[in-house]
């Protein structure tokens, strides 16, 4: 609590760690039972409300989820459907309310993603883990966030423009 009685600054509530060359782990603790987090992660109408926050820059246009082992999901991002970018894959593990895993099939180098919800005393530690097929695949994903070099260059150009260093 700070002097105004607000919650502490959110700065360090979310932690990201590169646990190995191929593995990226995000953790955060929530003041809620695991089953509600599981619900927010597996119901499209709830999922769509948080997966693409405004600061991520690209809105989530649609979300289809068939949440059962072997079931598939599909997310489409973009400003309009004609230029949407799709992310899709298959659920490999569905164990409510504590564990969910899926593949990311939009590229050949997609990660296997696992989310676990560990509840204790009404609070839940959420662990989101991406395991990539290779170190290079993880590097690429981190640097490009989505996509490869061309997008990086676009971002870079935009960034350079804002800094007045376009160098043209």
């Amino acid at each position, binding site marked *: 609590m700070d002097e105004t009685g607000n919650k502490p600054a959110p700065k360090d509530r*979310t932690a990201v760690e590169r646990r190995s060359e191929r593995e*990226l782990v995000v953790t955060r603790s929530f003041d*809620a039972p695991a089953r509600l987090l599981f619900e927010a992660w597996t119901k499209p109408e709830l999922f769509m409300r*948080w997966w693409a926050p*405004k*600061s*991520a820059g690209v809105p989530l246009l649609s979300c289809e989820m068939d949440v059962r082992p072997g079931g598939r999901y599909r997310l489409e991002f973009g400003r309009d459907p004609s230029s949407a970018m799709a992310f899709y894959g298959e659920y490999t593990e569905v164990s409510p309310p504590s564990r969910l895993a899926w593949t990311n099939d939009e590229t050949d180098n997609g990660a296997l993603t696992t989310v676990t919800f560990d509840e204790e005393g009404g609070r839940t530690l959420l662990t989101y883990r991406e395991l990539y097929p290779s170190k290079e695949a993880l590097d690429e994903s981190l*640097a490009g*966030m989505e996509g490869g070099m061309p997008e990086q260059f676009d971002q870079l150009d935009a960034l350079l423009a804002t800094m007045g260093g376009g160098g043209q």
Partner: protein
Amino acid sequence: MVQYSPPPLDASFAALSDSTRRGVLERLGRGDASISQLAKTFHMTLTGMKKHVGILEQAGLVRTRKVGRVRTCGLGLRRLKDEAAWIERYRQLWDARFDALDGVVEELKAKEERDGRDRQ
């Protein structure tokens, strides 16, 4: 809500403040090339291209290796920015996402409490 703000200018970005050097990286993104090939592609002298490649190499964006008399260039391991900066950007995305998720689960919690009371 955490907004993504541009990271501070560092050696990588300084190296990229030149359109020729950005062009060189784009070219190397399609495959390795020798310094003389690059010089030819960008209509420059060998010395001029060596200077550009040197700057990119220092920033970790390009690596070179000499085989016989030919120096071949490829994309460096560092790519455009320190890994730490990419991880921080990734963390900011997740932090914003989880703030929003927090809002959703708080709402679900409140609804459960209301429904629980209604049933009593």
